[in-house]
Structures are given as structure tokens and as C-alpha cells.
């Protein structure tokens, strides 16, 4: 027996090695068991080996990627560089188109916001923001497209300016940052009124005629009040910055940061619909009746309408449609006298001193508008208005205009430029019915576009509004 075993021991061993695993397999196939200690020990050895091999293979791969595979890296990098340049150009183009798209959307949104308002889109084709001259941009729309002077120019984010000069195919837009530009605004939060005047710097304007008692803080949004007859109501103009409230004086001063980055305007909308007076004051129509002869709007460049008349009459008081109205003195003192005072001395002080408290609010409109623009002009008789307060209201009449025509481009002064008085074109911005209600109703700038020749800063200075 042992001899057999010894003789066939190898065969028996092989058979055992063959059968035993098979038996184990069949025995354990249906139920999985945990590995024995031996199994775990063997697997413990396998782990480091796998890690080591992984480290070697990974290191080899890194070596390959980092060195061997970089043999053609230079050429590849150059090709990628070129491709990158192309892609970058594409990205820039896309960015430009996206920006244009967004701007167009904003413009479209603005245009759709007021369907009754007709607008004409234009593209800026020239920029002349020369600090020595006017702040102008040229757009590719002109009179052939229905554009006219004094038409407001806006973008989706706010006011840009107004059309200053037109040619058949192009127009110059006077930006709101121009020193000759003045826009009647409201503080959106407190509804206080004021004017925004340009400073010549595209990123900075100045707030004017904001009463010291008006509620105003830095950061307040200023929107167009619509009372200047040029700009529709509610368009963002800018934000109050650098507010300075002094202990004395009638007005507070502040800087205004324009809502529109005027250096980056590319597409604009020109509002071609005449602005209607949305803020009808009580009896405003009645007040304008006496001067009903003045058209609401006179077409044609350089011939703006005369809101001034209505303003002046409104300033004269609701019950004083006529120059010799009984209430005239008190009101006239602030409205009509303001220009004169301004002519004679400092406008603010003069009016502050002369304006009766009771009329400060009601009459201050004209006072505000009148005083700043009240500059002595050659041949002016300042005392005319001052000495005869009623002449302020009489300024609504052509006859009075001669006396104060140059003394102020204020409502009364502008009124003096009624065609029948001085044959000067009347500002349409004033378009009476509304102008009379707004204290900040711009006498200057947009409303007082009396001069047909636009680029004469000297004249602008005197009129306070029209370059």
C-alpha cells in the first residue's frame, strides 16, 4: 500500500490538487465566505504591489507626458497659439455682438416702454468731446430721417443729450455733459426739482437750482421731470454725488454722475415725437390761453417753441394771466425780479432777499430758472424788470421783452424773445402748458435755443442754454 502510494505519489498529489479545489469550489460556490487570514495576508501583499506599479506606471506616464511627449510641443504650441488668437478674435467679436445686442435690447425696451412715442435709432459715427468746445457726438441720422433740433436723444439707461444740429444725413447731439446743456430733473425719491447742467467733463455734471430745503442725499436718482418740454418725463439722468449743503444761500450744490457713460455710447434713440405736457398744473391751460397765439411747437430747426410765455405767466400766478394782474407784485418780485436782481447782483442772494417766503415755492420756479441765467448783457436795462415787477409778467408780452430780453434767458427773458417781440425764435422747450408749472423748468439750455447758429458759446453763456 505504502509502496503504491510512494510509487504514485506525484500522481496522487496532482489529483488531489485537482480535485480538492473543485470540491472547495462546489462546496462554497453557493455561499460566499469571508477570506481567511491567509487570503487577507496575500491580498495585503498585493496592495503595495499595485500601488508601486501604479506609482511606476503613473510616473512613467508623467515622464512621458512631461518630457518625451513634448518633443513637438513647440510646434504644437505655436499652432495652438495661432488658434487661440483666432478664437480670441472670435470671442471679442462675439462679445461685441453680445454687447450690441444688449444695448439694442435696452433701446428696444425703451422704445416699447412708450408705444405712443416715436423714436428713431441711430449709431454714433463721430465723437467730439473736446473740453475746449462743445460736447458733441455725431449720429448717422439727419433731417432726411425726420430728425430735428432739440429732439431728445436717449439710450436705454438714460438721457444722452439732444439734437443740436442736423444735416440731411447726420445730426450732432449735444451731450448732457456739455456746459450749455441743462435738463430739468426731479429727485426720484423726494420729487424735488432741479436742473442738471453739464460741466464739460463727460463723467460729471452739476446740479443747479435745488433748493436748500429740498430733500436730497447722495446717490439719489435724478430723472427728467419733463417740464423742460424737451425730454419726456422719467428718464434717468444721473445720480447725485458730492452734495454740498451750505448754511446759507438758497440752493444746495451737488455733482451729478450721469446715468449714461457718455464716452461709450454707440447706439442711440432719438425721440421724434413732440413731448406732450404730462404735468398739467391747475389752470395751466388757462394760463396759456392768453398767449395762445404762440404755437405749442414750432417745427423747424432753430425755431423752438415758447414755453417761456406760459412759464412766465404761470410764474405770475394762477390768477394773473395778464401782466397787470393784482397779485403780480409779490410773484413778480421773485419771478420777474429775479433776472433783474441777477443782472444787478448775485442771483441767489438777490432772489433770496426778494422772494417772499410765501412765494418761495410757487414763484421760485421762475426765480430759479430766471436767476441763473440772468446775466447782464450789453444794452440790458436790469432795472427794468426790477423796478417794475409787473414787467416780469409783462414779459409774457412781447412788448416787455425788449427790456429784459437779454437780461435773462429765464422764462421771462425767453418770453421776451417771442417772435413778435424780438423776432428771436422761441424755445419750444418751454411749450407753455407745462412749463409754467415747473420751478426747474429749464429756462436755459434746451428751452432757450434761440440762436439758429449753434456753436457760439458766448451766446450760449448769455442765454444759459443754447450753444
Amino acid at each position, binding site marked *: 500500500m505504502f509502496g503504491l502510494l510512494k510509487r504514485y505519489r506525484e500522481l496522487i*498529489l496532482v489529483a488531489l*490538487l485537482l480535485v480538492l*479545489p473543485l470540491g472547495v*469550489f462546489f462546496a462554497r460556490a*453557493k455561499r460566499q465566505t469571508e477570506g481567511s487570514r491567509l487570503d487577507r495576508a*496575500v491580498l495585503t501583499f*498585493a496592495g503595495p*504591489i*499595485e500601488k508601486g506599479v501604479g506609482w511606476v506606471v503613473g510616473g512613467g506616464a508623467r515622464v512621458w507626458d512631461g518630457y518625451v511627449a513634448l518633443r513637438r510641443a513647440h510646434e504644437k504650441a505655436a499652432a495652438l497659439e495661432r488658434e487661440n488668437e483666432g478664437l480670441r478674435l472670435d470671442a471679442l467679436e462675439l462679445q461685441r455682438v453680445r454687447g450690441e445686442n444688449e444695448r439694442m435690447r435696452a433701446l428696444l425696451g425703451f422704445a416699447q416702454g412708450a408705444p405712443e412715442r416715436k423714436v428713431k435709432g441711430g449709431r454714433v459715427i463721430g465723437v467730439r468731446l473736446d473740453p475746449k468746445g462743445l460736447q458733441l457726438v455725431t449720429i448717422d441720422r439727419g433731417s432726411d430721417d425726420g430728425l430735428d433740433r432739440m429732439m431728445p436723444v436717449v439710450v436705454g439707461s438714460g438721457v444722452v443729450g439732444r439734437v443740436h444740429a442736423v444735416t440731411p444725413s447726420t445730426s450732432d447731439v449735444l451731450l448732457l455733459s456739455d456746459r450749455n446743456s441743462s435738463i430739468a430733473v426731479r429727485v426720484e425719491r423726494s420729487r424735488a426739482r432741479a436742473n442738471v447742467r453739464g460741466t464739460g467733463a463727460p463723467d460729471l455734471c452739476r446740479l443747479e437750482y435745488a433748493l436748500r430745503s429740498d430733500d436730497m442725499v447722495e446717490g439719489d436718482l435724478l430723472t427728467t421731470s419733463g417740464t423742460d418740454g424737451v425730454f419726456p418725463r422719467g428718464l434717468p439722468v444721473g445720480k447725485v454725488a458730492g452734495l454740498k449743503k451750505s448754511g446759507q444761500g438758497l440752493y444746495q450744490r451737488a455733482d451729478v454722475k450721469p446715468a449714461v457713460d457718455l464716452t461709450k455710447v454707440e447706439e442711440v434713440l432719438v425721440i421724434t415725437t413732440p413731448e406732450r405736457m404730462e404735468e398739467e398744473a391747475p389752470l395751466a391751460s388757462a394760463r396759456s390761453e392768453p398767449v395762445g397765439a404762440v404755437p405749442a411747437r414750432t417745427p423747424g430747426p432753430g425755431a423752438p417753441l415758447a414755453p417761456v410765455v406760459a412759464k412766465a405767466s404761470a410764474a405770475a400766478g394762477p390768477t394773473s394771466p395778464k401782466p397787470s394782474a393784482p397779485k403780480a407784485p409779490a410773484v413778480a418780485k421773485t419771478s420777474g425780479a429775479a433776472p433783474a436782481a441777477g443782472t444787478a447782483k448775485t442771483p441767489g442772494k438777490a432772489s433770496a432777499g426778494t422772494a417772499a417766503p410765501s412765494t418761495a415755492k410757487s414763484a421760485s420756479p421762475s426765480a430759479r430758472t430766471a436767476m441763473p441765467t440772468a446775466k447782464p448783457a450789453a444794452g440790458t436795462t436790469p432795472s427794468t424788470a426790477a423796478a417794475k415787477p409787473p414787467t416780469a409778467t409783462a414779459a409774457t408780452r412781447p412788448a416787455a421783452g425788449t427790456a429784459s430780453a437779454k437780461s435773462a434767458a429765464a422764462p421771462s427773458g425767453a418770453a421776451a424773445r417771442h417772435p413778435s417781440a424780438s423776432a428771436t425764435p422761441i424755445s419750444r422747450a418751454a411749450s407753455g402748458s407745462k412749463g409754467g408749472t415747473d420751478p426747474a423748468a429749464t429756462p436755459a439750455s434746451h428751452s432757450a435755443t434761440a440762436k439758429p447758429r449753434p456753436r457760439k458759446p458766448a451766446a450760449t453763456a448769455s442765454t444759459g442754454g443754447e450753444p
Partner: protein
Amino acid sequence: MRPVAAFALALVLTAFQAAVLRYAGGGKVSLALAIPIVVYLGLHAGNVEGALGSAGVGYVLDLMAGGPKGLLTFLCVALFLLSRLSGAALAVAGKSGFAVLTAFGTFFVGLGSIVLTRAVTPAETAPGYGLLGRVAVESVLTGLVSPLVLVAMRRIDGLMAREEPGLLR
């Protein structure tokens, strides 16, 4: 020593294979680098040490495969016997012959694994014969790389070979 060397080499090769396949295809294809060891043992080793070595390799494969214990051990010993028979019947010489035999051996192990597993596991968890395609690919790939294992085994054999002092020395 040969069974121990086969066991150790099988352990290293399976670990290496697992690490390499992580980079090469991520498991789309598989290899059975331990099978050439069994074939080598069948061709060049004695009965006892060959059978022990094959059982050791099979044990390693069982551990690594995570399947039921004993299956691959049995199949490796069976492959050892087949290789031994093939080596006796055919003149398996050179690397190409070794590669072909290894490929067939790998397919045999794969097929046997599927058949036996199907025999003992429920139908719903039993491996399908559709896996034979993967087994075929594995066989081809293993056959292709088997000459490298052959070289390694020869080196190891050379390290362990004891020089017999001859009469002429």
C-alpha cells in the same frame, strides 16, 4: 522553490496587471498574465512542483478575482496538466508556440470558468456565453504578451538553477 517563485510572480503580475489596466483602457479589455506562468510550468516544470505552482497561481487568481474559491485553482491545475500533455504531444518551442498555447490555455480557463460558474450559480446570476467574446480578446492579448512572461520565468529559473560540477571541470 519554483512553486514559491511562481506564486510570487503571479502575485506581482496580477497586481501589475490591475495597475496597468487602469491606464490602458480602464477595463475595456482584460489580461490574464498569470496564465503564462501555468503554461510555463506545464512545459518546463516537474509534476509536483508544477502542480503546486499552478495551484498557487490559481489561488492567487481566485483571490484576485473575488469569485468562489477553488474555481481558478482547479482550472489552473487542469491547465497545467493540459500544457504538460501538449508539451509531450507537440513540439512547443519558441516564443510563438508558447504564445499560442498560452492563448488557448487562457481561453480554456475562461471557458471553464464560465461553464462551472453557470453550473453552480442560479440562472439569473450566471454568466452568459456572450462573455466568450471578451474571453477571446483576453486570450489573444494574453497570448501576445506571454513571451514577456516566458522571458521572466526563464530568468527566474536561471537564478535558481544550481550549477552541477561536471567531470571535466
